[in-house]
């Protein structure tokens, strides 16, 4: 990672104020880097803070959410120091997002072509005529025939809607793309098509992609590095090869073992009993301790620090050996 990262997230803390004044600590000390042309995967079960991380970086948190601490540097500008108005210039022009659930994220009463054009016109990047030409260009890029530009989302299949979402996200030529569960509701073949498309576009446009998913198979196919999240914290962070072939955190190990592998049929799958903790009632010590199969006494008392177990491979577990991580 000698290249200058395009986005550096450092010690990001986000919390939600709930009714009755309770506070849910949704993110705690989340740090990662992403370089241009790279793909990073955010993995974990539902409720681990993956989507909250994206929304914090885009500063699209609901009114109950606030970032309490941390640093988000995008192209050497601190995004947290920007006003809402300045932030608007970054959204979509510099960083855009493919929202979860392509089925429901499109406007049903607007043609697909108009929806793709909307952000271009909103940002005042070009006039109507040029914008129309740009829409055609985008449709070509994602493989939607021009004839379907004036159709409505309900006339599209799931895979086509996802393509339309991708075209929309790329409309203003961003350099960073967030993809929140882009393939979850899709068939395996369509999933493969969409992933292939993302990879192709990435190579062509030198995009940096942050891919959020709970599917470890998808991550292994496309990501260069992986952040495994648990209960709003980073459990393990490293290159794909490190994570898949030398997982250090028990949570990562279990997640990998619970993935059915066609080449090893008949074996009983490992599972992780229980569910992720409620963010209002976090256990003391390590957040994974109540479900961990390797739990020791220390886990229930002290929060494990993030250790650098190998070069640029970090894990937060008392069982790991390493030096305390210092992110630049």
């Amino acid at each position, binding site marked *: 990672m000698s290249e200058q990262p395009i986005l550096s997230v450092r010690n990001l803390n986000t919390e939600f104020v709930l009714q009755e004044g309770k506070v849910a600590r949704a993110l705690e000390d989340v740090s990662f880097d992403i370089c241009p042309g790279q793909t990073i995967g955010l993995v974990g079960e539902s409720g681990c803070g993956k989507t909250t991380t994206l929304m914090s970086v885009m500063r699209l948190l609901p009114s109950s959410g606030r970032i309490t601490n941390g640093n988000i540097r995008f192209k050497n500008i601190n995004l947290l120091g920007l006003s809402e108005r300045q932030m608007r210039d970054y959204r979509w022009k510099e960083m855009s997002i493919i929202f979860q659930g392509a089925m429901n994220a499109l406007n049903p009463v607007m043609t697909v072509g108009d929806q793709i054009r909307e952000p271009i016109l909103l940002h005042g990047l070009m006039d109507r005529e040029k914008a129309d030409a740009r829409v055609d260009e985008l449709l070509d890029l994602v493989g939607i025939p021009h004839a379907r530009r004036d159709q409505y989302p309900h006339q599209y299949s799931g895979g086509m809607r996802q393509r339309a979402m991708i075209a929309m996200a790329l409309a203003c030529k961003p350099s960073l793309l967030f993809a929140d569960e882009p393939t979850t509701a899709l068939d395996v073949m369509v999933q493969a098509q969409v992933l292939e498309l993302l990879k192709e576009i990435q190579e062509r446009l030198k995009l940096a992609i942050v891919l959020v998913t709970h599917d470890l198979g998808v991550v*292994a196919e496309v990501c260069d590095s992986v952040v495994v999240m648990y209960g709003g914290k980073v459990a393990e962070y490293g290159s*794909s090869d490190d994570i898949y072939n030398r997982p250090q955190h028990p949570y990562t190990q279990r997640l990998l073992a*619970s993935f059915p592998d066609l080449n090893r049929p008949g074996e009983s799958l490992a599972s992780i009993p229980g569910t992720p903790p409620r963010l209002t009632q976090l256990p003391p010590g390590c957040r994974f301790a109540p479900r961990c199969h390797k739990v020791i006494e220390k886990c229930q008392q002290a929060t494990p620090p993030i250790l650098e177990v190998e070069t640029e491979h970090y894990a937060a577990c008392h069982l790991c050996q390493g030096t305390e991580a210092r992110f630049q």
Partner: protein
Amino acid sequence: MTQHDLLEVRDLYKYFPIHQSILDMLRRKPPNYVKAVDGVSFSLARGEVLAIVGESGCGKTTIARTLIGLEEQTDGEILFQGECVGAQERRLRAGLAPLESAGTVGTREHLALPRIALKRLRQQAQMIFQDPYESLNPRSTIFEIVAEPLVVHGLSRSRGERAARVKKALEDAGLRPAEDFSMRYPHELSGGQRQRVVIAGAMVLQPELLIADEPVSMLDVSIRAEILNLLNDLRRQSGVSIVFITHDLGTVGFFADRLAVMYLGRIVESGPVKEVVANPSHPYTKALLSVVPVPNPRLRRERVILQGETPNAADVPNGCRFHPRCPVVMEKCKETDPEYKTVGDGHQAACWLI
């Protein structure tokens, strides 16, 4: 196809008529059909797990619904424990003309077979639906949900006996202790727990056959593993046969014995899972296998990605129905439909290249 087969399906067809405008009716245009299931045959032995795999729109779910009598087949026979399911003969008795396009209909032979009463069928064949968030009644307690099949079928009439059966079903499905769950409502449970309730409700009748329609596709990976393990345990303990419907080949290798790959209403390849996975013969099976995500970046490999999506079942291509998307298509494929050929022990495929 032996005497011991629990389920046998022969030449099953299910066509859905497409709504016609009055104008077209007046013009006497022949009605058009969505050919959801277009000539499917398979059998299932007792205690066996058959996986049916294919993309959305290939007819997997229609087969499941027909097996359990939620849809009536257009043609073909479903024999469950040697008895006829469905209503081809009801159609004949009502004086309805058989569908011409469906081929030979209404042979006398199966009229002689006793028709299994729907209620009896559903006592012995149970279905697990895809979405545990929508398949449970939000206003019933877990106890009521799991006890309902017993009430419907008039089984275990005494209160104590019924409670005991519900408790056992819940605990077998991994909801332990059952007392903690029985008075709760579905919204209080997580997705994985809800799917366990669905499974408990299906198993409380001690069925012979379980039809699981994408039981894990809505669930997180770690919970997915739990539910698959549970189905595997249930099968080992109770010897229930399972028809497992999925679009994800990755989950199939885990516990199915046999595999049927469907494309556009037809089975294109079938056989023992290990055999089909190790030695796929149909180009569609090869493509499906190549896109199964492998959780290891070192094993990234060349993937065969088919372009487009499953074509419309109302407009099935001529010749081999896979030819417009086939990476190795030949002239012959565009004209004639390939027959099944045996590739190995119990392993069949329909492709001209074999």
